């Protein structure tokens, strides 16, 4: 087990420059290596997940420096699960990008994709706060490139916004880390947990400031309400498969909140008692509402999927921000669901955009309309949280776990009402795009095909029949959601144990600080 933990970071880190420098001009080779790398990554991730499932916490000391001095990577149940999630989503998205030819519409897609994976996986595995910042930057800088992949004025403008917003977020992150270091003299998460817990209650002003700054940074990433403005613009204008991969990026924010606010600023820590739990829940509830209203009001497919992501990440944040072990277990289950559901939604939106452009309005019937409408129906059910897919199970678990909390009534009403509105929004979009086009065109389809509908200039001009292969990864993601529903029991057992591990951080701290060696 010794060196396996670092492989998810090293493999993409080596593969990306190789693709960039050696096989830059050979798209086929790039595809082969990128897919092979991601498949290998999935294998490694499966191994790590299996190891983490035993309940062991594995520590990897970089350069063999003992824990508070060197940087450590830590594999526990949560990070193992997140690495596995990322690998599965990445493989589906990569195959989709290849089969639709998205990777051919700009340069360096595969290299950037691998760098992105490196950043995300590193952020999940690291046990050091400053290293978390560095991996955030790695994933961001790759995502900037992916976001403006294949160019276009609108995408570039959205890219500038996205980069600017995230640069400000990174600066806040640095301010938070500087403050934490000034107060505690360490940035290792386990060591921080010890130091913060020991702080006398009357001397905690600075660490409280730092904790809130850190929460703000993670909220930017997770698109929690007052800080969500960047998401619709950037995800809505990003290439479809890239947006689907970005579904994991909001989860990086949620993961970081979950990690820092159970381990370092946990509910048992006196210094930061009640800092996040007092108001984060309201922000999260507003996020759900804003996301759903956005779904109702969107006039473009990609934007609607982006607002759906905000809504489902908001629901996830609601569960996280109740800060109990039960809600954390429900949150982790919902996190798995939300990642794949959002990814699927973006892929379906892209399938529609490829065929008839981005606006939600009736066109003439599109090729493969039937299959796509089935996928859209399933994705909408998943994102809105309707039975029979895992969104329903997830929301049910969240509601059930929230039953004992003080805000139970509020949580229940907001989540139930927004679910209803989300159904309305998706139903409206689905009927306009898939049904209305048949209504309008049946009598005089030729006329409309001639003149009435101006072609959307952003729709890519395709050869006669769009490829069918992209349906495979889309259906695969749907399959994952079905599996998640069928095996909800075993998955819940795992997430329950994960939450237990998170809320009893002493083992984590001991394992990291005592240094079991590499």
């Amino acid at each position, binding site marked *: 087990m010794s060196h396996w933990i670092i492989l998810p970071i090293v493999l993409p880190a080596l593969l990306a420059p190789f693709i960039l420098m050696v096989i830059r001009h050979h798209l086929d080779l790039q595809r082969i290596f990128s897919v092979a790398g991601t498949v290998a990554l999935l294998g490694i991730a499966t191994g790590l997940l299996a190891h983490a499932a035993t309940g062991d916490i594995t520590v990897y000391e970089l350069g063999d420096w003992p824990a508070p001095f060197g940087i450590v990577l830590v594999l526990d149940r949560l990070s193992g699960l997140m690495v596995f999630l990322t690998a599965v989503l990445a493989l589906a998205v990569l195959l989709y990008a290849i089969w639709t030819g998205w990777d051919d519409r700009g340069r360096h897609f595969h290299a950037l994709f691998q760098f992105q994976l490196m950043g995300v996986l590193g952020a999940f595995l690291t046990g050091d706060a400053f290293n978390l910042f560095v991996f955030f930057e790695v994933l961001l*800088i790759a995502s900037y490139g992916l976001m403006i992949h294949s160019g276009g004025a609108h995408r570039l403008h959205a890219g500038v916004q996205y980069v600017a917003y995230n640069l400000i977020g990174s600066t806040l992150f*640095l301010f938070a880390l500087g403050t934490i270091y000034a107060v505690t003299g360490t940035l290792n998460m386990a060591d921080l947990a010890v130091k913060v817990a020991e702080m006398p209650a009357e001397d905690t002003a600075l660490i409280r400031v730092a904790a809130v700054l850190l929460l703000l940074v993670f909220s930017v990433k997770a698109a929690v309400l007052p800080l969500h403005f960047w998401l619709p613009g950037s995800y809505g204008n990003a290439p479809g498969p890239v947006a689907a991969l970005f579904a994991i990026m909001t989860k990086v924010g949620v993961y970081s909140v979950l990690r820092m606010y159970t381990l370092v600023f946990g509910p048992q820590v006196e210094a930061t008692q009640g800092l996040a739990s007092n108001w984060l829940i309201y922000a999260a509830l507003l996020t759900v509402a804003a996301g759903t209203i956005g779904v109702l009001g969107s006039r473009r497919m990609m934007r609607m999927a982006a607002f759906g992501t905000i809504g489902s990440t908001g629901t996830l944040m609601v569960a996280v921000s109740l800060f109990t072990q039960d809600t954390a277990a429900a949150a982790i289950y919902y996190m798995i669901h939300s990642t794949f559901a959002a990814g699927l939604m973006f892929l379906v939106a892209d399938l529609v955009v490829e065929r008839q452009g981005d606006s939600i309005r009736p066109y003439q019937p599109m090729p493969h309309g039937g299959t796509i409408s089935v996928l859209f129906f399933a994705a909408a059910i998943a994102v809105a949280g309707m039975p029979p897919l895992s969104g329903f199970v997830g929301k049910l678990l969240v509601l059930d776990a929230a039953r004992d909390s003080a805000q139970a009534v509020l949580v229940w009403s907001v989540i139930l009402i927004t679910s209803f509105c989300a159904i309305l929004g998706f139903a409206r979009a689905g009927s306009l795009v898939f049904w209305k086009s048949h209504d309008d065109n049946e009598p005089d389809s030729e006329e409309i095909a001639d003149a009435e509908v101006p072609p959307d200039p952003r729709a890519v001009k395709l050869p006669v029949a769009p490829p069918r292969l992209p349906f495979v990864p889309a259906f695969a993601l749907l399959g994952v959601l079905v599996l998640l529903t069928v095996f909800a029991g075993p998955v819940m057992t795992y997430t329950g144990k994960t939450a237990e591990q998170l809320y009893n951080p002493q083992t984590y701290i001991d394992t990291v600080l005592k240094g079991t060696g590499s």
Partner: protein
Amino acid sequence: MEILVATAVGLLTSAGIYLILRQRTFPVILGISLISYAVNIFLFASGRLVVGLPPILRDEAVAYTDPLPQALALTAIVISFGMTALIVMIALSAYLSDNDDRIDMDDVSDLQDNDA
């Protein structure tokens, strides 16, 4: 010296925030760089400010200056430098492709102004 450093951080940050709130890309980028300068100084100061002391604890040394914040600041400088270069490039290509360097964009124009 604390006052000098604190004022510098404060001034840089406030100027940066003012510039970030502007509507054009160029002032926003300037603002982001100002804030990143501020945060570099702030990081540097987070290990306490001392003058003329060695950065490594030695047997004969009476005191030392913390070397870690300097390493952190160095990392932050490198990252913010790269990021600034990147955003300048993206902003430049956005400007050249559209002849417009506003940082905001409204969704309605997304749909209609495309063929312009």
